[in-house]
């Protein structure tokens, strides 16, 4: 089951190549040193060809947002606009409340992330450190929750949200990721992390008269930086990319998340507004990519530490 998913890679010491460490580096360099010049050229060519499906879509998106609609499907297709125009850009904000939708996505993602960290760190800490009645059954309960994706449980939740007047509010989008597989995975990550912390630290604090809550707040949580970073990245991305829940629970454009909003760029005749849609997509994608490029080491390390998307 999926707890093992987290157990395995966390206990291994994963060494990432970008981290030059004396001994490891010496060994790997012997192992992987590319000897001949030709081999190196071949490798660079392969590496570059392999970037095409990852880079081309993004570049095409950015440049096409400056094309007039007639050029989007020009034959033969070209990446650069023939006639540059920014006509599509202002429409991003007038056809859809884009900024509001962006703000919705951001604040939901922040709330989801913070809530998850609090709830999951508490639970993960208790599972790792405290002996309490029913700990085993409760752990199993969380494990079984992992096998219930939103798609399975959505119908009753939709009915309840309807009865409580929570349709077209952000409540379902906030609560479902926290108390669904995302939050459960986060609990496992925290549990695994706290298991790896030396107990001595806490025992010293206990002798000094600190209670459980004090130890958690003052000792354990401040040391949990790496786990917090991993959970934060996972949950922020999960929430920011949420689509299914948004489609089901949200009805009015002002409440939409940015992802849902992107699919609604149509003119009054229901014709798609290609360039505008691409401009909005650009505005959605580029900030995230910029943050990623600045912090890519942290991203990659955090995610490979857990092995969970």
């Amino acid at each position, binding site marked *: 089951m*999926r707890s093992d998913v987290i157990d*395995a*890679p966390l*206990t291994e010491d*994963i060494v990432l*190549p970008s981290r030059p460490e004396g001994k490891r580096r010496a060994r*790997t*360099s012997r192992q992987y*040193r*590319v000897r001949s010049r030709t081999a190196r050229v071949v*490798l660079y060519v392969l590496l570059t060809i392999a*970037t095409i*499906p*990852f*880079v081309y*879509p*993004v570049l*095409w998106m950015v440049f*096409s947002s400056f094309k007039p609609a007639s050029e989007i*499907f020009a034959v*033969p*297709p070209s*990446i650069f606009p023939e006639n540059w125009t920014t006509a599509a850009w202002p429409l991003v904000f007038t056809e859809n409340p884009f900024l509001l939708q962006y703000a919705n996505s951001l604040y939901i993602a922040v709330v989801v992330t913070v809530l998850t960290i609090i709830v*999951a760190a508490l*639970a993960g800490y*208790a*599972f790792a450190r*405290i002996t309490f009645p029913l700990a085993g059954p409760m752990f199993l*309960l*969380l494990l*079984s*929750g992992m*096998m*219930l994706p939103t*798609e*399975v*449980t959505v119908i*009753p*939740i939709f009915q309840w949200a309807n009865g409580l007047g929570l349709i077209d509010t952000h409540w379902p989008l906030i609560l*479902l990721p*926290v108390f*669904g597989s995302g*939050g459960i995975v986060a609990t496992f990550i925290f549990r695994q992390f706290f298991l790896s912390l030396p107990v001595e630290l806490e025992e010293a604090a206990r002798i000094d008269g600190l209670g459980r809550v004090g130890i*958690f707040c003052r000792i354990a949580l401040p040391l949990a930086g790496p786990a917090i970073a991993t959970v934060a990245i996972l949950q922020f991305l999960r929430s920011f990319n949420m*689509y*299914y829940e948004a*489609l*089901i629970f949200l009805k009015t454009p002002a409440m939409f998340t940015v*992802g849902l909003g*992107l699919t609604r760029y149509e003119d009054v005749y229901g014709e798609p507004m290609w360039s505008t849609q691409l401009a909005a997509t650009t505005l*959605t*994608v580029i900030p*995230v990519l910029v943050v*990623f*490029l600045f912090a*890519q080491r942290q*991203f*990659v390390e955090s*995610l490979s530490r857990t*092995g969970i998307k």
Partner: protein
Amino acid sequence: MVGLAFVAPMVLGVIALCLIPFLYVIWYSLHDWDIFTGAFDFVGLGNYQRLLTDAVAHKSLGVTGVFMIALMVVNIVFAMLLALLVNQRLRGITAFRAIYFSPVVVAIVAWVIIWQFLLAVNGGVNGFLATVGIQGPNWLNDPNTALISIVIIQVFKGVGMNMVLFLAALQGIPPELKEAARIDGASPWRSFWSVTLPLMSPTLLLVMILTSIGALDVFAPIQVLTQGGPSNSTLVFSYYMYQTAFERQEFGYGSTLGVVLFVIVLLMTALQWRLRKAWVHDEV
């Protein structure tokens, strides 16, 4: 008792938003539910009988299976190749790694929208194929190519994640072992199959689990690109369930499909347990 208080928020939340709803799904699945008249009639296993003769549901199960296997194979092979490629000591290798990983952080809807344009009949992909003399198909509107298009979009979106996991595993292999294989006269090819791959089996299994779970979560591309068409060729099960419950308002039968979806997850979990016991080399 403090422990109970610590786990209470998470456990109660999961009970309220996963387990209890699941019990309701089972209960609903035994009913015929007309949302317009409000009629909620117990029909026993009636919905399950309907499932047995529902050709669309059967087709949908087939599509889901094909999609899952295709995604797993393409994703894992490609991820392994990329991992081997970026596991070289070359200047600038980190940049390549970051590029292959970058779609992981891009919102799925945005990624899908871009590819919708690229896979159009006059889009970039066919334009590229035309330069090498191939007349590309109308990818998303042809029943023969629609599903594979979705696979391709999903693979490029997520392959970086698997690449990173494979890379970490590759770098965890003690160089002495490969050295020993080399001295014993093993070719690099042989050494990969006999030394590297067995040592990576825990990661390989992990990646398979993650990829298969990810394969169930393919709602956004289907909804944005094909709505299950053309001629149901991309009607994955979660999308069929969405159509039934939220477009046709058949919440009773939709719940039955939800139960089936759960059974799929359960079977996959069981299968993974078996695989793990039979196959994984060094268990941590």
